[in-house]
């Protein structure tokens, strides 16, 4: 009985994952070197995969912490697989750090708020010329769209012209009508004594957001989020492994509980902030208070789908016989229920913005509906209708085949969800899903699976001394 819990990471599996990574790297290199892929598209894809896979890993920590605090017993046999997923947080986090540092410091087109030029009222003529040359099109494939976005940004700037001064003078002067009616920019480019001219690209809104959206703080936040998550993932895993070898369970159990509670508190704040930072600030003028929770649920569903796939794979190889249909049924219920909850959040965000019809807000969905129409609506069909109709029946949630298919579909679906959140803000209408995107996905998937399998092979697939283990073994419904 104990044999089937010692997972062996075979050479064949290693080879498969390494091939995935190599193929991915080759695809990315071809894209970049052949010149058909813009820098922007590269960074946008790197961001998409980093956030997606790191998010899956971080949600696995949430899964452990939430079940620990909720005193769940059924999931103990599943736990080691979830634990293995959490270990990708650090690796995925390193890629996020590369993006965060790289784009905030060197490459400003991804997070264009990171460009100091946009928040300076007075600049030199040379800086304006440089900026204009950089954005004159042809710089990258998405140039045209980027231009259009800057137009948008500028247009909004004008709408908000005078906002800050008025705010400072009299923050509750509601008779201020500039907000709606001022739309002309009379800057004359007249050079002042020190050679500075009025910056025609000055973005009042971004200037106002600077205390939050600035490169040093942005980097610091990423370090804090990823550092905390990785640290707790490491702690929880270590305690769990130590429990296997130790005697008595209370101490380990209490420690896990302690770190789980800490994680939930941290996650409550960081899960929303990561979404604002890494995804929402790609459209730096746009905001939605629900955005963080929406992102979290999307990642969490994906994380559960990945867990289901891993479990089914392990079972197919003869491992963890202890995990049976009853446990998968529960995961299936989660996926079903939270897919509906995801739709609820999607609808709440969309409907409220659509109904209020405020241009600053609707532009977000307008662009997606126009330029990403099939993906935008496909999102709802894949992530709502499919799980809703397919997973509603009890026997569907207990069928390994149906669960496998649905898990794959939903991973693609939620990847698409992130694609539709990230791409319009970065590459605009010029989006592709081709060898390059697939390659980038394969690279990350290979790396992710390699990490997870490596972790699985390091310990028993069952937490043998967990006080709730026997409840989990006998779980039926």
């Amino acid at each position, binding site marked *: *009985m*104990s044999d089937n*819990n*010692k997972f062996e990471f075979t050479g064949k599996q290693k080879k498969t994952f390494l091939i995935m990574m190599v193929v991915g790297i080759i695809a990315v290199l071809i894209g970049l070197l052949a010149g058909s892929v813009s820098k922007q598209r590269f960074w946008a894809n790197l961001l998409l995969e980093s956030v997606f896979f790191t998010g899956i890993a971080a949600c696995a920590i949430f899964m452990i912490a939430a079940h620990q*605090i*909720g*005193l769940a017993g059924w999931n103990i046999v599943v736990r080691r697989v979830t634990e293995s997923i959490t270990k990708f947080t650090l690796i995925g986090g390193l890629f996020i750090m590369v993006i965060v540092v790289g784009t905030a410091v060197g490459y400003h087109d991804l997070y264009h708020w990171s460009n100091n030029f946009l928040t300076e009222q007075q600049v030199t003529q040379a800086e304006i010329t440089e900026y204009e040359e950089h954005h004159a099109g042809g710089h990258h494939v998405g140039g045209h769209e980027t231009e259009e976005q800057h137009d948008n940004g500028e247009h909004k700037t004008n709408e*908000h012209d005078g*906002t800050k001064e*008025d*705010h400072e003078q009299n*923050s*509750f*002067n*509601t*008779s*201020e009508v500039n*907000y709606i009616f001022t739309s002309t920019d009379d800057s004359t480019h007249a050079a002042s004594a020190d050679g500075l001219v009025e910056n025609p690209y000055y973005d009042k809104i971004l200037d*106002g*957001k600077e205390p939050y959206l600035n490169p040093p703080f942005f980097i610091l936040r990423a370090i804090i989020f990823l550092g905390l998550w990785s640290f707790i993932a490491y702690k929880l895993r270590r305690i769990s492994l130590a429990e*296997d*070898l*130790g*005697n*008595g*369970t209370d101490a380990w*159990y209490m420690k896990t509980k302690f770190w789980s*509670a800490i994680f939930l*508190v941290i996650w*409550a*704040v960081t899960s*929303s902030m990561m979404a604002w930072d890494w995804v929402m600030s790609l459209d730096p003028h746009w*905001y*939605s*208070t*629900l955005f*963080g929770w929406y992102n979290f649920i999307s990642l969490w569903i994906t994380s559960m789908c990945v867990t289901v796939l891993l479990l089914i794979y392990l079972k197919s190889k003869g491992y963890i016989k202890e995990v049976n249909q009853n446990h998968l049924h529960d995961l299936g*219920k989660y996926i079903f*229920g939270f897919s509906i*909850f995801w739709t*609820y*959040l999607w609808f*709440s*965000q969309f*409907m*409220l*913005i659509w109904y*209020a019809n*405020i241009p*600053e807000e609707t532009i977000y969905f307008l662009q997606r509906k126009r330029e990403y129409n099939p993906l935008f609506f496909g999102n709802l069909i894949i992530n709502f209708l499919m799980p809703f109709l397919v997973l509603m029946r009890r026997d569907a949630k207990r069928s390994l085949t149906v669960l496998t298919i649905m898990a794959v579909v939903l991973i693609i679906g939620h990847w698409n969800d992130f694609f539709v959140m990230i791409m319009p803000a970065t590459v605009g209408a010029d989006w592709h899903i081709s060898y390059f995107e697939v390659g980038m996905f394969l690279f990350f998937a290979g790396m992710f699976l390699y990490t997870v399998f490596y972790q699985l092979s390091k*310990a028993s697939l069952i937490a*043998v*001394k967990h*006080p*709730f*283990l*026997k*409840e989990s*073994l*006998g779980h039926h419904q």
Partner: protein
Amino acid sequence: MFVSPIREPLIQGHKTYAQMSDDIIGPVEAKPTKMWLAAVTFCGLVALTGFTMIGLTITYGIGMWGLNKTVGWAWDITNFVWWIGIGHAGTLISAILLLFRQKWRTGVNRSAEAMTIFAVMCAGLFPIIHMGRVWLAFFIFPYPNTRGPVWSNFNSPLLWDVFAISTYFTVSVLFWYTGLIPDLATVRDRAKTAFRKKIYNIFCFGWTGSAKHWQRFESLSLVLAGLSTPLVLSVHTIVSFDFATSIVPGWHTTIFPPYFVAGAIFSGFAMVLSLMLVVRKVFKLEQYITLAHIESMNKVIILTGSIVGVAYITELFVSWYSQNQYEQYAFINRSTGPYWWSYWGMMTCNVVSPQLFWIKKLRRSVVFTFFMSIFINVGMWFERFVIIVTSVHRDYITSAWTMYYPTYVEIFIYIGTIGFFMTLFLLFAKVAPVIALAEVKAILKTAGDQYTGEHATHVQHEHAVEHMHDEKKDGNFGTELKPI
């Protein structure tokens, strides 16, 4: 089903099924006590005062209230949302916690469901009397009529509310009553007089407890639980739409739907605690509503309170982040304007104080929990007041800025609904078991303290309890699994 010995039992005192019936049905069979009579009279009088004030409002019009041209929604809508929120715990406990297999819900679900129904009844009063011409209230229902183009406006979230709340009310009543049927039958079976037997027999639909009855009961419960689950979210979501679909700064924010739902569950649990802590004391049900129950509910309070807290901070942050001066001012006005006390009252009661429940001692303290539950109810009332009044009393046009103060009529209508609510609850507690007897009996074998926990004496499956204690010592819970 194996239960880990580290789980806390949920039924104490080594109860037998017969004892459980005695303990839970006992108060229904006993003569009304003087205390009960006094309480019901008092609450009835309070309710009567409230209805008198409603009468004044209907007679003289909404002018009896403190509303004005700028503040068209205030006290009444605050109370409406507050009551609707309180009405959320019942369905959450009976439907969602059922899905999450939380056994402790059986100790409190009956009263929570009853409370839900009474709270929704109180809530429903407010929009109706706010209409001014109550006699035209039926206009909200779309039906073929001779009024020509005057029909319900389907684009209005206020109309969605009508459907959401009436559906919620209907399903809650059905769910509650379905659960009551076997218990009413037990009351009937124990009845000493023929009259009493007859009455309870009518109300339990002649339940015999046959296998067929139980099978239908189970199917119906499952269907109702399935229907109730989305309803837990939909009702307060649609209430939040009343505000969030507008373009009023402070109201128009996308986080409102889930945040309103979390806040509703938060206040609902607080109200369940307020009532249950009294009920368990008066009816001596401490062995059925144990400290484990109270602790679990307090955990739900930390969870939902923190969700609400994160939402407050998100709103506050995003109002600044938006760089939209109206959004920003809405929040500056909330926190530092003339109604600052309501904002800080809300923050203290809803976000800061529930965090004290992280301390296990406080979580398990009955007295502390009771004060906390009152605190949270006050805080949640402030929350709705903050959202509604502070967002509208300073309009876009400064000349329209004004203050809102409630009149005595409004204040007594509010107090009257509390009296009405308490009267209904007291009546319910007298005629029906306040704990779902059949459901608590169902968990005895897995959560009774003779079967699990430190004082267990019974054999659990094939393993003797002594044996389990040994297992606990060496950390091997009778499984064959060995570490690798």
